[in-house]
């Protein structure tokens, strides 16, 4: 019988990896195509990866000295890979979402309350299906999913 592979936790190897140019292009293109946020917005940041998460971290003059530190967290959780899709985190949208030009859902305070409470709303809008930015009275709350006439909350 084939032995089941278990993922090992390496306490000494917590530094996330710097992703390849191609992978970076893929993640930043998603932000540009989905929300209209240009890749230059993130030119002073590295994209790092742990398992299915991408982290945004300021580009240091040199990374190597920092990599000798045993770290707990590095940077801001930016994007997740959910099956074959990329999903922006609410934290990252709250930080950079004001630069978005599309796929923004404006809710009134009562609608927002309902969405946060019930986690999904019947919702019709002239939007492409997929992840959206939830905004209410100029404040960006984070990530939602618009699909099949419903708005699903991914707000923390």
């Amino acid at each position, binding site marked *: 019988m084939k032995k089941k592979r278990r993922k090992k936790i390496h306490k000494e190897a917590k530094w996330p990896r710097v992703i390849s140019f191609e992978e970076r292009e893929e993640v930043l293109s998603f932000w540009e195509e989905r929300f209209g946020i240009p890749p230059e917005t993130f030119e*002073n*940041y590295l994209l790092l990866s742990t398992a299915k998460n991408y982290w*945004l*971290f*300021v580009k*240091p*003059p040199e990374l190597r*000295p*920092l990599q*000798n*530190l*045993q*770290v*707990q*967290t*590095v*940077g*801001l*959780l*930016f994007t997740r890979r959910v099956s074959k899709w990329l999903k922006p985190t609410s*934290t*990252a949208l*709250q*930080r950079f979402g*004001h630069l978005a030009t599309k796929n923004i859902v404006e809710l009134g305070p009562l609608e927002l309350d309902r969405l946060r409470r019930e986690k999904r709303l019947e919702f019709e809008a002239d939007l492409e299906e997929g992840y959206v930015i939830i905004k209410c009275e*100029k*404040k*960006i*709350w984070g990530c939602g999913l618009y699909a099949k006439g419903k708005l699903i909350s991914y707000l923390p």
Partner: protein
Amino acid sequence: MGTKMLELSEAPAYFERYRKIIPRFEEFLEHLKRPLPLYFRLNELKCPQEEIVLKGLERQGAKVFPVPNLPRFFRVEPRDFPLGNTEEYYLGYIYPMTLSSALPVMALEPQPGEYILDMCAAPGSKTTQIAQAANDQAVIVANDRRLDRLTALVANLKRLGVASALTTLYRGEVFPFGVPFDKILVDAPCSGEGRYRQGYEGELLYQKEGHTNLPAIQKGLLVRAFDLVKVGGIVVYSTCTINPEENEMVVDYLLRKRQAQIISCQYPLPHHPGITEWEGRVFHPELIKAARFYPHETESVGFFVAKIKRLF
């Protein structure tokens, strides 16, 4: 380290030893009977328009006033307004913090591209202030020795949307060498005397030293920070206590052990020079360039700040 409630009636006896160094001592004692005003710092990393925050808080019944000479700081009335329960807090637009707590980072003057270590960082008011000051472009190592406190720090970094910090869990005294730090903040654990004042319950809260030798810990942290920073770099040492044994005496220890000088700073709050003599001990004359802040003069927490340059 145990905590003990200090009754307000005990305060005059407790602080009597500082009568000669605290200006207008009676006024100071009287001031302790008043609760601390409520302030917050606006986080422009997440909130590009301050109007959003100001109008939002006013709609919830708060009155908000800008603090003169301290950009991004606001005073809130009433002072028991639950800032922590607001949308503005939840979304990371604000960080409630007392005014004098902003001074160490002002002395640090963080710049984009610098490697900065915040040695005792949790819960993160100063780390996030450093990130803001450098427009999220300094490389910040935010360290704390306790995991529970580090958890609070990580939550605040996330809440404020900081992407320029990494977190570590070392004992500051043995933080590893290898990163060419330009600047280091040692906001040291202290007896917290600067915070003593009448709480809403009518008592003063303080942490009793017990068997913990705070000055020994503080000296260990400061010396390590000095050895970690690059030559020509800056270490800012701060505490929220009045006690010279945790302030000037700690910096004096460093000045005698290492090639360092204290740099004078401009601060937007009233302050006094560091003292150069205490209970018969004479300190290094450089200490006159350190700064003491008192609660009754700043409407805030008492603080000590020394900006130290590594010469060799």
